[in-house]
């Protein structure tokens, strides 16, 4: 019996499967040990690698609110379970001491951040959006022939990003920006 890498990963991922390879090496204890050490009792969820656009599907293992391991999903037809160095480091996007977990505010002219409650931040940001729109909204302007036309446009706010957020998030942002009147509306596809 020959065993592809994909099969091997599959078997090692399911405890108790008897696996024997060619020359009689029994991988069962290895598989069992790996399972015990790493992913026993962990929940597994499908992930998509957040780096380049190959779209490697990942298996994200978690215990409680902690991700304990991320690896390639061996069934993925276009990747066959492989990950590159970036994909293999995905876990550090979540488990990283440098990661900011509080909202931060920097006042005009200040040289430092201040931690602020999220609700305060949202209220203040909404105020900035509202005030800027109220002050600078262009409801009508003259077209090239000098005729006044409805344009409902807001030139004073720009929105950039992102090729790093989900489709659903992109749609919500498109809907928010466009219904609000924003036309400076771009993301990384332009650069």
């Amino acid at each position: 019996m020959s065993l592809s890498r994909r099969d091997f990963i599959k078997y090692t991922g399911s405890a108790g499967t008897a696996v024997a390879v060619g020359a009689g090496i029994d991988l069962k204890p290895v598989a069992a040990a790996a399972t015990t050490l790493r992913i026993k009792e962990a929940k597994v969820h499908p992930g998509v690698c957040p780096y380049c656009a190959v779209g490697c599907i990942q298996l994200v293992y978690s215990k409680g609110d902690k991700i304990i391991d991320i690896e390639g999903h061996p069934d993925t037809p276009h990747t066959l379970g492989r990950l590159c160095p970036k994909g293999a480091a995905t876990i550090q996007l979540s488990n990283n001491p440098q990661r900011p977990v509080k909202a931060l505010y920097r006042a005009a002219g200040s040289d430092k951040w201040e931690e602020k409650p999220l609700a305060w931040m949202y209220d203040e940001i909404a105020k900035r959006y509202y005030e800027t729109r109220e002050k600078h909204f262009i409801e009508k302007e003259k077209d090239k022939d000098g005729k006044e036309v409805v344009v409902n446009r807001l030139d004073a706010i720009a929105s950039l990003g992102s090729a790093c957020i989900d489709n659903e998030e992109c749609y919500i942002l498109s809907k928010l920006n466009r219904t609000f009147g924003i036309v400076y509306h771009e993301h990384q596809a332009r650069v």
Partner: protein
Amino acid sequence: MTTNLIDIQNSDVIMATSNFAENHPVGFQWVMKAKERGAKFIHVDPRFTRTSSVADIHVPLRSGTNIAFFGGLINYAIQNNLYFKDYVTHYTNASFLIDPAFKTATDGGGLFTGLEQTGKGGDDPHLAQIYKRDTWKYQLDGEGNPKRDLTLKDPHTVFQLLKRHYSRYTPEMVERVCGIPKEKFVEVAKLYCENSGPEKTGTITYALNLTQHTNGVQNIRSLCMLQILLGNIGRPGGGVVALRGHANVQGATDLELLYHELPGYLPMPLRDLHPDLKTYLEKVTPKGGFWVNLPKFGVSLLKAFYGDAATKDNEFGYQWLPKRASADAYSHQHIFVDMYKGIIKGFLADGQNPAVGGPNAKLARAAMGKLEWLVVKDIFITETAEFWKAPGANAKDIKTEVFFLPAAPAAEKDGSLTNTMRLIQWHEKAVNPPGDVTSDAEFFVSLAKRLQKMYAGSNKDRDKGFLAASFDWGTDPKEPNMELVLKEINGFAIEEITDKDGKVVYKKGQALNSFAHMTDDGKTAGGCWIYTGVTVEGPDGKLINKANARKPADEKDYLAHGWGFAWPANRRILYNRASADLQGKPWSEKKKLIWWDPEAPGAKPDEKGKWVGLDVPDFNAFLAPDAKNGDKPFIMRADLVGAFFGPLNDGPFPEHYEPIESPTKNLLSKQQNNPVVKIWDVPDQQNLLAPTGSSEYPYVITTYRLTEHHLSGVMSRQLPMLAELFHSHFAEISHELAKELGIENGEKITVSTPRGKVHVTAMVTHRLKPFMIDGKKVHQIGVPWHWGYNGTPGLPGSKGDITNDLSATVADPTVYIQETKAFMCNVKKGVV
């Protein structure tokens, strides 16, 4: 991408023009698989990389000369009769006759017929001259159809014009312009062209190596033209492989976080052209091809945006949409120029880091200092969030308020991402984000709802559209149910829809199975028509999320149609009608993909005949090859054929022009640069350019990426596992240049342009060699652009100067992408 990564294994020859192995390592395995089958692999790149190391031929070419190279290949295929004649004659516009007054750049000194001075624009050639397209059109017969000559011999056929246009692109010219020795070019041309035809197919891959130029769009067109000339589109092992660089840059393009369009590639209305919905739909809907359905997609989008408030009587809310004042406005580079000028007061940078990642990054940071407020949402604190801490910045003088919101990576939320092959794939929330970290969706919805509360009660017309938009998906007031957002994107029936016999096709609220069921009367809503079918209703009434489908490939389905959902309609290879001949038979058994089965059960019980095979057919599966348009594969084009002649702002055929900054005059014509290039006039000398052949800036510079880092570095420089893999920011320079300048490997050097300078480590290497351009030695250096002033504590190499401080604010005239793959610099030993 017209094809699918998996299908690269079926190629007989692959030409990579980017560093595929290092920038898309996991996708590259399909090139290796093709090689195991005996395929030949060509790598065209100024640098020798890991991609070159497994290539049969590495072809170094001077950055910025890709059109000269591809034009040379087109000329070679035509001159040596190596093109796929039946495919070219029937599936492209080669046989169409063009207005006799049109002249190619061969007869126009590098210009096409129609360049006109506008009398405005000052130093901006983009405004000072534009092309009038009066002669860039087909000759029409009495019924309004294009005249054709299927012998391709009429001098006004597209084919003869193509031949005439590229007749100057000889192997000798390619050698002079690109620096590729003539013999090597002929070897590559022979290898690529001879491996295409009925029995063989070739694939070309590209990335930002071709797009980031002032003729970026024409670069891509030139390789697409080579592919249709050789019959390589819509067939197994053929295609154009666009290797995109971000996890969801495809999806963010489809859902249209871009100034010029609305979701699903619908043009964003222009003030002067589209005053009302009727005029808009008339002007933007082509007369032929699948886009004739645009009104259905447009009205469904307005219904998705504005809900019940969008009615026939108010043009479905069309007037509420903002109208662009000009087509030459609002792009990435326009944003930072206009921000610098004070037009933009507030700015949201969501998951994007323009302080490092965009062209002329120094200008971007200076522009942010003129804002009233800035909101940044990202996983880590970016250089954009801390532009006021940049080296040389004085925080006290910067009056911009900055709000930073921590963001959740994919593993901490539900949602879908669309990969480079149009494949929509779902990920699940594995854990809750820590602390005050939230998803981007949570932030957008919180902001929208707060703003709606502030506007509540307004009776002003200008606020009605925003108040009508619903930001509720599911019961949780904060976190939207992403599967319901996906359903809105997919489209659904607003009311019960019945067929002509009164049978219910869709009940109220049901997800649509196909964009073919969208209507322009307000009965359907859909946020992005090309995604329709990604989520459908199962027999039990529950949503089936096909983005979360996980059926692996098998022997019967190598393209894995049960894994995720590829737009449109789960089709894996676009234009696949072209895989069969006029009669619907595969061009060869070896290269079969879909074919017409005359015996298969037809659309009705008493009919026979259907397109069958290995992929979802690209059009109505029951459209017989001998029916009207049953032999036309390029369904998204108004004339249903592939376009050699394809008018863009800078011409109907790609023509080589030098980059804005170049070491040489244009050797092909007296027209130095793209005649309608966009160059911004930025105040305070923020966009100075080096003149052609400048002795102050004598070296070509190109920017690039590394396997272990990601783009502007936000998601790699702060991860110790990745950040520790590079000693420091560096520039690759050849041994020859190092010797001329007395530079040792590993020492600090200064790279400068008229915009700025960076201090980096010299990596003296054989991977770059000087080019001989028209008998003169030209040095080129390469600098990755992942570094910035933030990084991982304890890892000094994770911080470095910003490469994009060197690049300029100039752009392609069609899509306004910048020129960061070819410009000019100086290199000096030491930190100066």
